[in-house]
């Protein structure tokens, strides 16, 4: 009897332990079938929502006005780039690219506005056929402002920052019908499935200067969050932000060659709120895809709207996304946001790792009989397309066209290149690939916010101070 009780206890313990480990290491695999609501309303609703109230409101402006203004200048550029991409004739792109970049750098460094602009006031033409894109962007910019403000507000104690940030994330997700997903970009990019679309890489190729301006912007935004994270609530926050800001001219002169992700430039904030960090990555990627679509010269505004609506919905919140929020790694969890380093400039990094992974997942299906050389050539083409500007030996046009030259018998489902259409088999293949690689990845641990950080303790822990950093950069 004792023996059987022991056996029963062991069985219960085994079952309990299995369930516990399952819950800890739950793969949270993507659903077997991906169904993105296909919707492209002909008449759009205005549908704007107000910000979350609390003690933090506008603290970011009050405390860091210069930094706030830099963000506002970047958002002017974002709005303006829509009409630039849509309205510039093919033969004037090079000149327009340089002019836009020159003007936006001047605005950022010398004339940064004190007003957060709405996209439509600087990209009014596109607003008239892609309003859902604009209100999605504006709403996520409001989330940016709210979360900067929560970290800026000293009356919110350090150990309450997560609670308030989580509240801001809930407000962002629940009040709006098209919020960006809190799932990592690895997931949403596979859902969006844009790599084989005819517009893929168009903005990067035809507007290399403007494109890299936004790569600087996507370094700057997370660098400011991370400066707040290492500065804490006291005056060290100002100091850390000023030191991070001091790198802006350097970043503009030596620009990143890829979109930097939150996990790379703000690992601590990503650990504080992976949902919020992923929302920003998903917004920044949406910016890039939207510019690609608008630059593509062979679709009408109505077709572009259809495709934008598809991408907006594919990268928006889907039930269950929150369970995937912490499924990523932070490659440099102790990086110093006050330093602008060579690894930030390289074309190789997290963003392009995702793109290469997706290509590897797709290749067996679209090029089943490809030789080793063809695969190597295809990958070389991908790297060329991922690098801003037209590279030596890179055929102009889409990545799909480039692949057709390498593998004329490439297999594609008919119609999937068309606006608003997606390739569900390919999306599911890629999601399966992600599940195999990352579903068992331990979730990113939450940042302990029990003790307020200090810059001194960071230096003692081995992080280099800014003067040393400048020496290193020289």
């Amino acid at each position: 009897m004792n023996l059987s009780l022991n056996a029963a206890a062991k069985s219960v313990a085994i079952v309990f332990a299995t369930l516990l480990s399952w819950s800890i290491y739950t793969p949270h695999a993507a659903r077997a079938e991906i169904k993105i609501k296909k919707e492209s309303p002909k008449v759009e609703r205005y549908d704007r929502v107000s910000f979350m109230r609390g003690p933090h409101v506008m603290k970011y402006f009050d405390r860091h006005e210069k930094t706030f203004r830099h963000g506002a200048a970047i958002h002017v550029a974002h709005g303006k780039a829509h009409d630039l991409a849509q309205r510039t004739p093919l033969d004037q792109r090079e000149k327009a690219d340089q002019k836009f970049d020159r003007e936006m750098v001047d605005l950022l460094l010398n004339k940064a506005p004190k007003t957060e602009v709405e996209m439509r006031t600087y990209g009014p033409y596109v607003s008239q056929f892609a309003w859902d894109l604009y209100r999605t962007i504006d709403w996520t910019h409001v989330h940016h402002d709210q979360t900067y403000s929560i970290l800026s507000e000293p009356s919110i104690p350090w150990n309450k920052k997560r609670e308030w940030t989580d509240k801001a994330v809930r407000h962002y997700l629940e009040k709006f019908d098209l919020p960006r997903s809190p799932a990592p970009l690895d997931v949403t990019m596979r859902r969006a499935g844009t790599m084989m679309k005819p517009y893929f890489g168009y903005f990067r190729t035809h507007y290399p200067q403007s494109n890299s301006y936004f790569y600087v912007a996507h370094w700057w935004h997370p660098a400011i969050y991370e400066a707040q994270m290492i500065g804490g609530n006291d005056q060290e926050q100002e100091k850390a932000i000023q030191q991070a800001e001091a790198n802006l001219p350097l970043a503009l002169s030596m620009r990143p060659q890829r979109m930097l992700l939150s996990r790379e430039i703000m690992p601590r904030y990503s650990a504080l709120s992976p949902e919020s960090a992923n929302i920003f990555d998903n917004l920044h990627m949406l910016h890039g895809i939207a510019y690609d679509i608008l630059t593509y010269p062979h679709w009408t505004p109505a077709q572009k709207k259809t495709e934008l609506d598809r991408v907006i919905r594919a990268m928006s919140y889907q039930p269950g996304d929150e369970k995937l929020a912490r499924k990523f790694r932070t490659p440099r969890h102790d990086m110093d946001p006050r330093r602008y380093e060579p690894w930030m400039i390289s074309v190789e990094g997290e963003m392009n790792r995702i793109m290469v992974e997706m290509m590897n997942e797709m290749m067996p299906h679209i090029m089943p009989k490809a030789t080793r050389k063809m695969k190597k050539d295809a990958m070389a083409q991908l790297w060329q397309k991922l690098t801003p500007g037209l590279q030596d030996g890179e055929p102009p046009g889409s990545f799909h066209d480039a692949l057709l030259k390498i593998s004329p018998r490439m297999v594609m489902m008919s119609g999937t290149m068309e606006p608003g259409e997606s390739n569900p088999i390919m999306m599911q293949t890629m999601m399966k690939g992600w599940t195999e690689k990352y579903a068992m990845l331990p979730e990113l641990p939450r940042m302990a916010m029990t003790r307020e950080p200090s810059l001194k303790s960071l230096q003692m822990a081995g992080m280099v101070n800014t003067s040393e950093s400048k020496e290193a950069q020289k």
Partner: protein
Amino acid sequence: MMTWQNAFGAVVFLITAPLFISPVVFAHDHTNLERGIPIEIEDAYPTAFENREFQGILRTRRTEEKNYEYELVPILEYGFIRNGELELAVPVRFLPGENNDSGNIELEALYNFNFEGLLLPAFSLKAGIEIPTGMNATGWAPAATLLVSKTLSRGSWFHALHLNAAWLRNSDAGIDERLNRYRITLGYELRLDPNNMVLMDLQREQQKERKNESNLFEIGLRHQWNPLTVLAIGTGVGFSDESPDFRATLGFQRSITIF
């Protein structure tokens, strides 16, 4: 001697005055044009869902009799449903004469039907009622307005046209007063830079008194003073016999964050 209507106006002013100086407000409604801030034209877009906003208008006008009239209008606005807003205003008037209607409560609801397309403008309907709580006020005055907005931009220079067509009813019209009348306003909006908007409009309105019509041309500037405050200044001139000679307006808008 203070009448109860004046006392009511004073109470409304005292209740809302602290909001003028409250630091816990945020104006993110810079592009959303409101009637009277600083000129009559209003766009077809409501305030954001769940936004609570306080607005203030201080207006003076010189009549054809060369008298100056002053008006202070505190307004509370609330995005009570998606694409819809409610407005509560209590204009307090300081006229040389009897200050008729000063302290009337004006309640309005606006609903927007769509965001504009490349050809299709944005449309909204606004319904309102003026409740005769003010000085010497008699009848209820319902009103309905169609608001139309269309962006003209074909590049990144933001400019737009707006049309407001209002029907106004005077339920207690005297023998020499109109029972129904109209007010048409055509306006133009132009962004100068991120912080400044220029507005212009042309308004034709049938007055309460029969055979009287007024025509007014206005120009104004909306300036985002800082993220907390939108300030507006405007002026107008009349160009027919019954129109005001001149009018000037100061206005502001702030979103309330204390509740």
